């Protein structure tokens, strides 16, 4: 254990003192976050397109409609619930207000001095677009309150129910922050090949083999170092996203940390496969590039899979990064799943096991 800790410390020091490694694993993704943040966080007065589903059909609904429109923040689009939900998933509307049957009757009864049972509007919002969801909640609550005030002296007749509808139309920054984290983890893992090949080429691995240090300690220390750096990357990228770009992280930290660990391990194992086949440091550099760029651009981490042509999407289906990006997006910002979270983790796990088997077979210490 003592030797594991001191070897990990030595490897971490070597990493921190290697300016190039530091740039690619920490500064590069941060630059990406800042770049995307600047491009996509353009301001402007907020105005929301909102679906309006009238299931009541009484004149009282007209009053509600004009109350919404008077707020000045929303443009209403009429339609059925199904049609509006489809529109919301496509990003055409930011939320949906449903007026269930019976609302008009209750309001009329209250105005006539009765005490009808409370009724409620239903508001659909996307939790991953926290700012928008919050704004729509405020507006809808205000409409309900003003309706209640109009029938003063009575217990409030109109409430608001909240429903979540996850969409793939995350705000751009919310979409990209998990993507950049996934990219950073991918690079971190794949680049693990380089110090490994370096240490083999410089005969450091051989020298370590001449000490009583068990081999699992060598592997364990490499993995420990990568996990520590992964934690730093996550804190940095998520921190900047939350603090400066208004990304709302909805997932629990435990789930995020677990997923980051699974992702880092999977890509470190791919790094080991590269180190198994690269004889020289130059070869390792070349191979990491060959693996890295297709992963980056064909994995749907920067371009949503939906907008890809079919042939490209079928390539992306094989990329482990597709699944890490998808999983991080689901857990961190509540993005709509490409596949269920369990499938994401299973695919990453399958890659991990396959890569471990391959590098167990082909990795050479000297």
């Amino acid at each position, binding site marked *: 254990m003592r*030797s594991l800790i*001191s*070897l990990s410390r030595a490897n971490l*020091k070597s990493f921190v003192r290697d300016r190039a490694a530091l740039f690619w694993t920490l500064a590069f993704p941060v630059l990406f976050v800042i770049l995307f943040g600047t491009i996509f966080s353009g301001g402007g007065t907020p105005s929301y397109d909102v679906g309006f589903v009238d299931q009541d059909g009484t004149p009282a609904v007209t009053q509600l409609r004009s109350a919404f429109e008077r707020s000045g923040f929303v443009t209403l689009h009429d339609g059925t619930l199904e049609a509006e939900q489809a529109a919301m998933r496509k990003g055409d509307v930011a939320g949906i207000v449903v007026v269930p049957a019976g609302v008009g009757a209750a309001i009329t009864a209250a105005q006539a001095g009765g005490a009808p049972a409370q009724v409620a509007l239903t508001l659909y919002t996307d939790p991953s677009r926290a700012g928008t969801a919050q704004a729509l909640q405020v507006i809808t609550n205000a409409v309900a309150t003003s309706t209640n005030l109009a029938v003063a002296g009575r217990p409030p007749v109109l409430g608001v129910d909240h429903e979540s509808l996850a969409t793939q139309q995350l705000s751009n920054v919310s979409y990209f922050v998990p993507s950049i984290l996934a990219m950073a983890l991918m690079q971190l893992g794949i680049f693990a090949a380089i110090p490994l090949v370096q240490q083999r080429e410089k005969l*450091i691995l051989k020298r370590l083999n*001449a000490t009583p240090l*068990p081999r699992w300690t060598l592997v364990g220390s490499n993995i420990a170092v990568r996990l520590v750096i992964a934690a730093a990357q996550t804190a940095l990228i998520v921190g900047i996203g939350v603090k400066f770009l208004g990304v709302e992280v909805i997932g629990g930290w435990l789930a995020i940390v677990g997923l980051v660990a699974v992702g880092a391990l999977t890509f470190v194992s791919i790094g080991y496969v590269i180190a198994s086949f690269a004889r020289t440091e130059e070869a390792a550099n070349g191979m990491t590039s060959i693996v890295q760029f297709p992963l980056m651009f064909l994995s749907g981490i920067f371009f949503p899979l939906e907008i890809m042509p079919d042939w490209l999407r079928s390539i992306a289906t094989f990329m482990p990064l597709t699944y890490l990006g998808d999983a991080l997006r689901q857990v961190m910002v509540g993005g709509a799943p490409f596949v269920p979270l369990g499938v994401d983790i299973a695919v990453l796990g399958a890659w991990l096991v396959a890569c471990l088997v391959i590098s167990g077979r082909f990795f050479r210490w*000297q």
Partner: protein
Amino acid sequence: MSARAPGPAGSGSVINVRDVRKSFGDVKAVDGVSFEVRAGEIFGLLGPNGAGKTTTMEMLEGLGKPDAGELLVLGLDVTKHATAIKQRIGVQLQTAALFPQLSVAEVIDLFGSFYRRRLPASRLVADLDLEEKRDAQTKNLSGGQRQRLSVALALVNDPELVFLDEPTTGLDPAARRGLWHLILGLKAEGRSVLMTTHYLEEAEAICDRVAIMDHGRILDIGTVDELIGRRFRERAIQFDTLPTLGDGQLSELASVTRVAHEDGVTLLYTADVPETIGALLGAAKGAGVEPDNLLVRRASLEDVFLELTGRALRD
């Protein structure tokens, strides 16, 4: 460094190699090698590059498995007890393999953490004259400094047996002598040393016993005197050629076996040096001359190597 009592191993052997073979593809790198290193001695494997010295040494260090044969280090079978052996031996590889971004002190501390028994880094830094470079990253060290650090790492666990693979290759003469002094110091502390070298004068200067290797085989083993004495019984008496003493007269002198000339010097090969010198001085006195630059020359390890392999050992 720590004084070490000769102990019970003083009489025994620390390395036993019996008929070890190792091939890489079609190349027989080590082809039936047997030798023994005694406790407390400096044993040298001498031979040209590619002779199988490093392969033999690395098998003893547990870095390569033999195809056949038996390797005992400190009484333990290397193929079965590699980890236990590694705790007690010190290893210096031919290429100094250091973490380039770590400082001298950090690398020593790191390697120290791998062993149960360890010497303080401060003492190693002092003993190997690395104090100035204590906090320098190893990538910025000179060749001699790297080599000394590499030896320091081989001593970090206070080993009983030290393996040094070509420890002075690439060093300038002063640095080489410094390292010889250090290796002799290891012996003085009671450690045993197995080293490889392709420098004849290095083997002559510091090795108690030498095995001459070529093409994966050991051609002969012994002290330098034994190796020479086995082949070259006669010695040569050398002096500046005296025109007044003819070859005919010289060859008549007591015990002289042969007379030769080399660049203005005369060589008298003899089986009995004192007798021939006496006769030579007598003859010179009789002729009224005195031999200048008189000295006794013996065959060197180089002559032995030439005799054994049919070629000279060059860098």
